[in-house]
């Protein structure tokens, strides 16, 4: 579903990604872990070209991303959830969810609204349809953000530290939604520090450090028997 070949990304002279090769299969849930500054967020953001790679190729569902031609069409197939939610504060929850289906997919407004309400029900926020984002708690906002991404019926969902900005008591309501999503067969790539979630839900865990995938394996392998010194060191600090 996602294929990455020889991905490099530099900001000025600073090289963040130093050659990433990765394939993610359909319905696979991949969790990316690693110390901060290791490049894991940049890797995720390269997948939908929010960051333009310095070198390398990225294929989504077999189609290579070419920024000049198909970038918006491919982005529509790849949902993304941000650390800081990034809901549109001037729109109601419902308008947030309906915007892209209306403008990008040119969906019928009635149909888009029905779908938006279904998604809100799915993330447990039916009664908040007409609220504005700043009237919601952080956890509720992030669930709306997930619903907003799902409204485009993406083939892939990217999560960039979706629970890092949340108060601890709100983390689980978001993880629950993500767990449901994984169980429904969504292809997912998540950058997260929630090791419990990784252990439960991930098919594969990647350990990224200094711009490279240092190690990967099933959660079982990674958490109980990491091979590299750096992974051992990192895991010992957060587990």
């Amino acid at each position, binding site marked *: 579903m996602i294929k990455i070949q020889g991905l490099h990304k530099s900001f000025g002279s600073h090289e963040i990604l130093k050659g990433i090769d990765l394939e993610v299969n359909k319905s696979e849930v991949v969790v990316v872990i690693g110390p901060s500054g290791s490049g894991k967020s940049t890797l995720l953001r390269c997948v939908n070209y929010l960051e333009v790679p310095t070198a390398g190729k990225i294929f989504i569902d077999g189609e290579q991303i070419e920024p000049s031609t198909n970038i918006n069409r491919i982005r529509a197939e790849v949902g993304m959830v941000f650390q800081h939610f*990034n809901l549109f*504060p001037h729109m*109601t929850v419902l*308008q947030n969810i309906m915007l*892209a289906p209306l403008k990008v997919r040119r969906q019928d407004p009635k149909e888009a609204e029905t779908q938006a309400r279904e998604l809100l029900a799915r993330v447990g926020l039916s009664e908040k349809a007409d609220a504005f984002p700043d009237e919601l708690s952080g956890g509720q906002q992030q669930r709306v953000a997930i619903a907003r991404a799902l409204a*485009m019926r993406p083939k892939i969902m990217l999560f960039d530290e979706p629970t890092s900005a949340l108060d601890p008591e709100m983390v689980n309501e978001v993880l629950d939604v993500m767990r449901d999503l994984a169980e429904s067969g969504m292809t997912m790539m998540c950058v997260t520090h929630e090791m419990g979630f990784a252990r439960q839900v991930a098919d594969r865990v990647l350990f990224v450090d200094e711009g490279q995938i240092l190690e990967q394996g099933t959660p079982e392998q990674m958490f109980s028997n990491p091979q590299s010194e750096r992974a051992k060191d990192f895991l010992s600090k957060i587990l």
Partner: protein
Amino acid sequence: MFDLELIFNSLPLLGLGALVTMEITAVAVAFGVCIGLFIGIAELSSYAWLRLPAKVYVDFIRGTPLLVQIFIIYFALPALIGMRIEPFVAAVTACSINSGAYVAEIFRSGIQSIDRGQREAGRSLGLTWGQTMIFIIIPQAFRRIIPQLGNEFIAMLKDSSLVSVIGFEELTRKGQLIIASTYGSLEIWTAVAILYLIMTLSISRLVAYLEKKFNTKKVS
């Protein structure tokens, strides 16, 4: 000493001048907002061929007095194009071009003040750059810059008095013309000042109301 009757007799004429002042200000700011929106966005463009001319325009207009800009358009430009420009056209053109530069800076800072995450969220949903601007960035920026736009409106209203130098009969020029036959400087300039004050105070009230309306109820 203070001739109240003169003020009373002049009020209809001054009121007419005040209306003309409002008209030219409204038209200039309306054009200014259109110009300013495009120039402000151009200033943020990653394309140098868009960014540099926008920057030159803004720097030139903000770096030269409006009075000189009015003289250039009314007195100098006709010599170049061989056609006289009507005072109204010259006045509106000068004020719009001037306002455009200031509004451009207001829009530029407004757009820059919107969190980068908003743009990324829009783009990640598959919205184009233009859709992201129109549906996400500009509406938020616009709410944020209402006070500055109000200030620009007030500044323009006051600066529009400068077009009296080309004989355009707005409030200041009307005052000047009345004084030319009555010599009532004290009375007429006092009345003119009060009329300006009434207009600027009304605008700041209106802006305060709009700001409240947009920012508490969030009507989209």
